[in-house]
C-alpha cells in the first residue's frame, strides 16, 4: 500500500467515470426523481422530524443505488488487470476514498434538491454548520460501509438485491445515529449536544475503513 499507487488508482477511477458520463448522470437523476416523487406525495414538509427522516431515507437509497455499481461494473478482465498491477489494499482504499468523496458531494447535491422541492423551512433555526457537517459525514459513512458490502455482493455474483439485504442491517445503526444527530442540529442545538454524535459517526467511519483495509485482500483474491 503506497500513496503513489492509491493516487494513481484514484486518477484511474476519475478518468473511467469521466469517460462514461452517464454514471454521474444516472446518480443525480436517481436522487432528483426520488425527491420529485416524494414531492408529489407530500408537497412541502414543515415538521422537522418528518423532514429529517425523509431526507435520510432518500439519501440512504441514493447511496445504495450509487454504491451498488461500485464493483458491479468490474468485468473480469479489468479486475484481473488491476489484480496483477496493484495491491488489493490500495485498490480498496482508492475505491473507498473515491466513493466517499462521491457520496459527500452527492449528499450535498441531494440536500439542495431536497430543500428546493420539499421546503427549507426546517432549516431556519438550524445550526447550519453542524447540520452540513453531519450530512457530509453521514453520506461519506454510507459510502464507506457500502463499499465493502458492494464488493462482497458482486463477488457473491448476486447483484444489487443481495447488496440491499447485506447492507441494510449494517447501515441501520449508522442511519439511526445520523438521523438523531441531524435532528439535534436542525433543532439548533450546539456542539455540546451534537458533538458526541459527530465524533461517534467519525469513529464508525474510521473503524469501517480499517475493517475494509484488513478484509479486502481476502475478498479480492480468487
Amino acid at each position: 500500500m503506497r500513496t503513489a499507487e492509491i493516487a494513481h488508482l484514484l486518477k484511474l477511477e476519475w478518468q473511467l467515470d469521466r469517460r462514461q458520463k452517464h454514471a454521474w448522470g444516472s446518480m443525480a437523476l436517481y436522487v432528483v426523481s426520488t425527491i420529485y416523487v416524494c414531492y408529489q406525495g407530500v408537497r412541502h414538509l414543515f415538521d422537522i422530524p418528518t423532514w429529517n427522516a425523509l431526507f435520510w431515507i432518500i439519501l440512504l437509497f441514493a447511496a445504495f443505488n450509487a454504491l451498488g455499481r461500485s464493483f458491479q461494473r468490474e468485468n473480469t478482465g479489468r479486475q484481473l488487470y488491476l489484480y496483477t498491477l496493484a495491491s488489493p489494499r490500495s485498490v480498496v482504499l482508492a475505491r473507498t476514498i473515491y466513493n466517499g468523496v462521491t457520496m459527500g458531494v452527492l449528499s450535498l447535491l441531494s440536500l439542495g434538491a431536497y430543500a428546493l422541492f420539499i421546503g427549507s423551512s426546517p432549516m431556519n433555526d438550524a445550526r447550519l454548520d453542524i447540520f452540513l457537517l453531519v450530512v457530509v459525514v453521514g453520506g461519506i459513512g454510507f459510502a464507506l460501509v457500502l463499499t465493502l458490502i458492494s464488493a462482497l455482493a458482486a463477488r457473491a455474483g448476486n447483484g444489487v438485491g443481495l447488496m440491499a439485504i447485506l447492507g441494510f442491517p449494517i447501515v441501520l445503526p449508522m442511519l439511526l445515529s445520523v438521523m438523531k444527530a441531524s435532528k439535534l442540529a436542525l433543532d439548533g442545538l450546539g456542539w455540546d449536544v451534537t458533538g458526541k454524535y459527530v465524533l461517534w459517526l467519525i469513529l464508525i467511519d474510521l473503524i469501517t475503513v480499517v475493517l475494509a483495509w484488513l478484509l479486502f485482500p481476502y475478498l479480492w483474491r480468487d
Partner: protein
Amino acid sequence: MKGWWWKLLSVVLLLYVVIVGLGTPLGPALVHVSIDRIAPGPVSLEATGYNTHFAENTPDVWLENDGQRLCATEVKALSDVQLSATFIVPEGFRTNLTSLWAWDPQDGTIVLREAFFTEGLGTGIAEDSCLISDAPRAGFSFPNRSILNETIRNLFFHVPMWFTMMVLMTIAFWQSLVVLRTGDLAADSKALSAVDVSLLFAALGLITGSFWARATWGDWWTTDPKLNGAAVTVLIYAAYLILRGSVPDPHKRARLAAIYNIFAYVLMMVFIMVLPRLTDSLHPGSGGNPAFNQYDLDSSLRAVFYPAVSGWILLGVWAYTLHQRTARLRSIYDEANDR
C-alpha cells in the same frame, strides 16, 4: 464421554436457578393505597401490602414529606396484607408529594413512594416525636420493586439469553477469523453452527423481552436502543444466512461469509457498546426508567443471576456442539456419497 462435566454443571446451575429463582419469595412491599390525595385535617386510609405480615405484629405507619415525618394516630391490621390507618394531617408540608411508610419486625421498613398528592403546603410541619424503628428484617428474598414486582425473576430467564447469544456470536466470529487465516471448511461449518444456535437464543430473548416489556412498560415493542440493537443483530445474521445460500461454491461461500461475519460483528459490537450510552434507554443503567439499575442488583439477585448467566451460556455452548456434531456427520456422509 470426555468433557461431560460442564454439561452436568450447566444442568445443575439451571436447576438451582429454577428452584431458587422461582422459589425465593419476593420481599414485602406496599402496593396500593385507597386514596391518592391528602388535605389538612383527619385522614383515614387503607393500604394494601404484598407478602406482608400485618396481622402478626401491627406495624408502625407514618407519612414522610421532604424528610419530615408524621405518625399515624391509629393503626389497625385488617389482615396480613391489609391495614387501615388514621392521620391528623397538619397544614404546612413543604412539597406536594408524600410517601407512605410502614415498619414491623417481620417485614422491616416498606414504603410506597409518592403515594399522595398533598394540599395545604407551607414551610414545614412541627416535627412529630413518635418513635420509629427501622431495624432491618432478616431472611432471604428478592427486592420488590414497584412496577417490576414478581417479574424481577425474568432477570434469570431473559437477560442470559442475550449473554448466550453474544458468546455464540463471538465463537462464530472467532471461527470466521480461522476461515480467513487457513481456509478451513470445518471452521466455516463451526461458524454456521454457532450462528444457527445464537439465532435461537436471539429469538428467545426477543419473545421473552416482549412479554416482559408488555407487563412493565405497557408495550410489546418500544424504540429503545437495546431493542434496536437486538433487531439489527437478528437482521445481520439473517443476512449472513442468505449470503451463504446464494453462493454455491463451498470455498468461496466460506470466505465471503467469514468476511461479512467479521465486518458485521465488529460494527455491531461497537454499536451495541456505544449507542445505549449516547441515548436514553428504558433498560437498566439509564436515568428515569422503572426497571432496576445495574448497580443496585442486590446480593440476593446476584446470587441467582450469575449462576443463571453461566448456566445458560454453558447450555448454549452445549447446543452448539450438538449442532456442530450433527453437521460434521452430515458432511462425512456427503463425502462418502460423492465418492
